[in-house]
């Protein structure tokens, strides 16, 4: 990969250690993705904010790194472990370490968004412009729906982009890669947001290319289904974009059997003691849908709703938050269902959710069993 004189100097440590490490990361991913050069990015979204995911090694790394490092492009950050405005019963160590992470990102200059749906909260650059998004659902969403360009960045590659303002020009930043060469043929009727999440999860596992086509059948799906599809795809695979463009290349069928085997992998219990909604965090559209379905009813189990803070604030103004809270839901900001320490094995035997992403991480990382149901069924079965 060709580096300019300035980039070479950065790599050689002439501008300090953090910039040198950042270029070392960019060089490695440039080599990995066959990039010829680096290009500027306009916006970075970072993952690696939740203490539950990065642990003590991550805390120490970020604390040290933030002594010198500063972000040179607008940089938003993913959810952390809890809602900073609400009481929780997490350990003092968790709160201390989580606090250090938030402080380190703040010191480097991040916008304290604590959200995995930055594409619903901030003004987007024009279509075709380059960004660097870690957080797999967000990378898939901005590539597939909003026409921005990002690779499926890692926490560290996006961090390197935030420090340098650059990313390797490769893979999904290049036109030809954005034309799908493999297609998933949908051989069953997809009705609910859960169906689309399962399609995404199956596809991520089945496809090794960076972009996959679902054909025109996904052209008019709503925001809930689209986010569910993007999150499923990002969770199980390496694919960072979906498209409705047709392709005559290889096709893989997603029918009843494929859906069933995906459910069998993720659905690990028939019941649960808590309902958790929001992975990705809910946006205004889903909050509205949910409030329409729940009005006049009450959840018969504990219910946690994870949404972005600006979404919560808007919901308070419009009265939606009141409807949900009256139904017994606890609305939590700054955190997300997947990998939240609020949903631990010590506290819950099973979690009921409509999110395949949440199901994957609750099962595999939190060690909590999951009962997967679509939203309509959750409301039907668990409200009075």
């Amino acid at each position, binding site marked *: 990969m060709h580096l300019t004189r300035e980039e070479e100097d950065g790599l050689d440590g002439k501008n300090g250690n953090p910039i040198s490490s950042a270029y070392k990361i960019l060089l490695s991913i440039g*080599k*990995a993705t066959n990039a010829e050069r680096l290009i500027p990015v306009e916006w970075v979204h970072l993952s690696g904010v939740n203490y539950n*995911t990065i642990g003590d090694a*991550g805390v120490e790394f970020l604390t040290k790194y933030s002594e010198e490092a500063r972000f040179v492009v607008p940089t938003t950050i993913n959810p952390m472990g809890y809602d900073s405005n609400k009481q929780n019963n997490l350990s003092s160590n968790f709160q201390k370490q989580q606090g250090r992470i938030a402080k380190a990102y703040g010191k480097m200059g991040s916008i304290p968004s604590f959200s995995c749906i930055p594409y619903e909260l901030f003004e987007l650059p024009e279509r075709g412009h380059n960004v660097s998004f870690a957080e*797999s659902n967000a990378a898939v969403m901005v590539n597939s729906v909003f026409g921005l360009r990002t690779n499926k960045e890692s*926490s560290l*590659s996006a961090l390197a982009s935030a420090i340098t303002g650059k990313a390797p020009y490769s893979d999904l930043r290049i036109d030809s890669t954005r034309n799908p060469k493999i297609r998933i043929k949908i051989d069953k009727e997809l009705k609910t947001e859960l169906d689309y999440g399962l399609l995404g999860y199956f596809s991520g596992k089945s496809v090794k290319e960076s972009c996959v086509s679902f054909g025109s059948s996904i052209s008019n799906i709503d925001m809930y289904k689209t986010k569910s599809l993007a999150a499923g795809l990002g969770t199980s*695979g390496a694919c960072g974009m979906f498209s409705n463009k047709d392709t005559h290349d290889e096709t893989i069928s997603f029918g009843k059997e494929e859906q069933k085997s995906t459910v069998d992998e993720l659905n690990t219990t028939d019941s649960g003691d808590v309902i958790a909604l929001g992975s990705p965090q809910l946006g205004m559209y889903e909050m509205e849908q949910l409030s329409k379905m729940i009005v006049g009813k009450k959840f018969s189990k504990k219910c946690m709703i994870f949404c972005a803070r600006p979404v919560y604030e808007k919901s308070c103004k419009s009265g939606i938050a009141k409807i949900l809270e009256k139904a017994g839901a606890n609305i939590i900001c700054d955190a997300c269902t997947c990998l939240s320490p609020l949903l631990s094995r010590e506290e819950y035997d099973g979690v009921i959710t409509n999110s395949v992403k949440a199901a994957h991480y609750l099962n595999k990382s939190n060690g909590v069993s999951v009962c997967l149901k679509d939203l309509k069924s959750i409301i039907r079965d668990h409200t009075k």
Partner: protein
Amino acid sequence: MEYSLRGKTIVGGRAKGMILLTTQPINFLSSVDKMTGRITDKNHELFGKFLKDSILIFPYSVGSSVGAYSIFALKSNNASPSGIICSLKTDITTASGCAIANIPLLELCKDQVIPEIETPSEGIIDGSSGFLQIKKV
């Protein structure tokens, strides 16, 4: 038997360890215990095996972008592979994690075929020449 496989060096350096081979991708965040390096995903063919001090040969990593921190944490906890080979494509998570953790990383060249590897076998990665040597021990 001794074999030699050619790769592209993504992160340089030399590494030696017992070969741990899989054809299944790995999600470093959800499927590996960061303290011990044990593969904890029951559905994975390496379930129960330890990454520590190995030469890990796997196709590519999947899933969470935070997997890069998981690779760094494995190294900090002295539980990481000594070196890694991506046999299909090098993903950004693996590349960036290895870059920051100083774990030598090669991507296997497209024309290279992994032979039947007897267990246990030892692997040596040489980042400067881009070769992986495998020999039965």
